[in-house]
């Protein structure tokens, strides 16, 4: 197990280097950010040259990259154009998005698994068909549609929740955006759980458990659910990274100043330290989530072991 984890961690190094370089290259390809800092006015050449020199933008791309990596290993992710350090931006943005992601994942797991179990156990009945239909509708509605719609209905019409989230992003205000963010994945979780449950419900070990005279809730929670959750956990694990990165739309709609907001600003203003720094962290989150999922397998199903 320990060797497996060590190997997986070592694999992260080339992924980290490769992804940062690719990102650096892509942001660089967008062009020179300095011209836009002067608005509709032609940049004063002397000032522009001074800014480029200070931001290391007058060097060839590979030198900029080496310089950037050198800085990163000293814990310096560079500065955004408004003078804030990127680490400062991260410190304010990641906790917010993390909270939003947690809310989304909790909703996804609770609602998704419960609905999946109900419909999986009643396969072919009306409740099953209803859940399938509903999840189909949810999957086909894009986030920005459901986001604006729920925001208007809950925020403006019924005034149940604030339509936008305060800068401190308290958890209760994140419920509505968390629901919006969770919706699509929630449908997938429901469907995955349903299929898995429906399949395993006829398995030998479930029949044995029932034959032993175990109470129904114990059969379901201990025997059936535990085995059926493996594909669901895989999905949720990889989904954590996707949710954090994919929060751009949701965060914009609800004015949440998290990772999506900072990434959007970074791309709009072509600030490569912001974009590269944030996405690099997201890549790491993604890798860590994957690792965690693989380790969870062993917990859920003792037959799966890593040498």
């Amino acid at each position: 197990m320990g060797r497996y984890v060590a190997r997986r961690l070592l694999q992260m190094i080339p992924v980290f280097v490769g992804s940062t370089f690719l990102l650096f290259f892509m942001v660089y390809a967008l062009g020179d950010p300095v011209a836009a800092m002067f608005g509709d006015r032609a940049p004063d050449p002397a000032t522009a040259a001074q800014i480029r020199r200070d931001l290391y933008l007058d060097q060839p791309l590979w030198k900029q990259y080496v310089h950037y990596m050198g800085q990163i290993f000293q814990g310096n992710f560079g500065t955004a154009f408004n003078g804030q350090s990127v680490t400062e931006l991260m410190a304010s943005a990641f906790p917010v998005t993390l909270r939003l992601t947690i809310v989304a994942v909790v909703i996804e797991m609770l609602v998704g698994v419960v609905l999946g179990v109900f419909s999986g156990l009643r396969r072919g009945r009306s409740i099953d068909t209803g859940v399938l239909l509903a999840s189909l509708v949810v999957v086909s509605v894009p986030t920005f549609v459901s986001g604006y719609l729920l925001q208007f209905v809950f925020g403006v019409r019924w005034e149940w929740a604030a339509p936008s989230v305060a800068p401190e992003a308290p958890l209760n205000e994140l419920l509505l955006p968390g629901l919006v963010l969770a919706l699509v994945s929630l449908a997938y979780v429901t469907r995955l759980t349903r299929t898995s449950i429906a399949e395993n419900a006829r398995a030998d070990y479930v029949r044995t458990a029932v034959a032993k005279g175990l109470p129904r809730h114990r059969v379901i929670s201990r025997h059936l659910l535990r085995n059926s959750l493996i594909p669901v956990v895989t999905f949720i694990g990889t989904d954590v990274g996707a949710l954090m990165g994919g929060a751009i739309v949701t965060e914009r709609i609800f004015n949440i100043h998290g990772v999506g907001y900072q990434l959007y600003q970074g791309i709009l203003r072509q600030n490569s330290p912001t974009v590269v720094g944030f996405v690099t962290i997201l890549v790491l989150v993604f890798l860590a989530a994957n690792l965690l999922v693989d380790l969870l397998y062993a917990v859920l199903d003792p037959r799966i072991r890593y040498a």
Partner: protein
Amino acid sequence: MRRPGCAKWGAGALAVALVATACGGGSAGRSGVVSSSWGDPQNPLEPANTNEVQGGKVLDMLFRGLKRYDPRTGAAQNVLADRIETTDSQHYTVVLKPGWTFSNGEKVTAKSFVDAWNYGAQLRNKQKNAAFFQYIDGFDRVHPATGAPTATTLSGLAVKDARTFTVALNQKFSSWPDTLGYTAFMPLPRAFFKDHAAWVDKPVGNGPYLVDSYDKGSVMRMRKWAKYPGDDPARNGGIDLRVYTDNNTAYTDLQAGNLDLVDDVPAAQLTHVKQDLGGRYLNQPAGIIQTLTFPMYDKRWSRPGSDKVRRGLSMAIDRAQITQEIFQRTRTPATDWTSPVLGKAGGYQAGLCGAACVFDPARARQLIKEGGGLPGGRMTLTYNADTGSHKDWIDAICNSINRTLRDDRACVGAPVGTFADFRNKIAARTMTGPFRAGWQMDYPLIQNFLQPLYYSNGSANDGKFSNPRFDTLVNQANAATNSGAAVAKFQDAERILAQQMPSIPLWYQNGSGGYSERISNVSLNAFGVPVYNQIKVN
């Protein structure tokens, strides 16, 4: 700020999540405070480094300079300046009013101005408004076009005593005093130079508000400065500026009673904004003009006869229809190259463009034909696609031109991904056809609408238009000692634009805004920015 105290979620699993999170986020001590939407300023909030609206509006609350533009008329009026005297339009003596201090108690003196201007002009400080000091003697030494600066201070500035300083310009510039209301010319306290980082985190100025807290990227809380010595103190307890990435969300927040003021009504809401807000919707002219600029450096657009093509294209655009259908009358068809906010005395003259700005398809076809037709039979209109939903109106203009020329493929829009890339292409002079341009005035002077944009080598002369006669007239206008004569000269110069049409004036942009029932006495100034200090909380 009113948020629903505790979300009334009841349903199933959500309740579980809610139990885990105590209802809270309460807001105390907000009485008399107005909350308003804001965009994240692009640069640190230094006066000489702020060249866009979002940062500018904050500095306008935190600072008062020698002059200020009247919120209603746009006329430059003395604030800190007691008098600004000159005999030759080139050497000025500035005398300050007594009794002004910064909100930290430090006195505002002649040195506060001279130090600030020297800082702004200095190349090493990388201030984006450095060019505003270019008319002062010695600018070329503190801010050389190439190489390192050879001086640390502008030789044209001299402190005479605590309340007097002199300015020597390197050319005659009669309306120079009227430019001094611009953000770049604000005074700075010693704290700015002593601990720059701390100052930028929490700016200290001499205006009607002081910064209570500044959470970069999300909210700036300003409170009324009780000891403000000026005659335009804040009539509310303070302003909370909240950063919104999406103006639709700000508008939704306004509807939900969660926000008091939005200073930009999104295009998608314009059709029903009157039903939503009634009399609390603001829509009035601002000092912004939008144009299509021709790349005059491209031979195909500057050969003999192409002035006819350019004028013909201007006549092929149905401005009235586009401003109504697409902009819901938040734009006014342009008939000159300035803005109605200047007023007649300031140099705005309706109809100066003449027939060239009137929709006339038959005449347009004829002119374009006489001029040799579109270069290569086709043209593109370049715009940036990332902000401002420019696609709609660019497509509408192309449709109008295509209908006029009876050719479906004569004009197409050419989107560029980001504003930065768009500006790069303009700076690199790689445009092959007209491109969109917008000009928001720095100060309400006709000079600001003409000189930066069309004077040879002007700072915003993106099309590289150059006309000796135009330059001469601008020089004469700047040298004129009475403002009526100066305006007349500027308008003569503008008539050359009507002949040559280096850019097609499209429409004047209005400022727009909406506010809640909680506040009143809301208006927009000539720049389209709310006059925050006059807002009253009911």
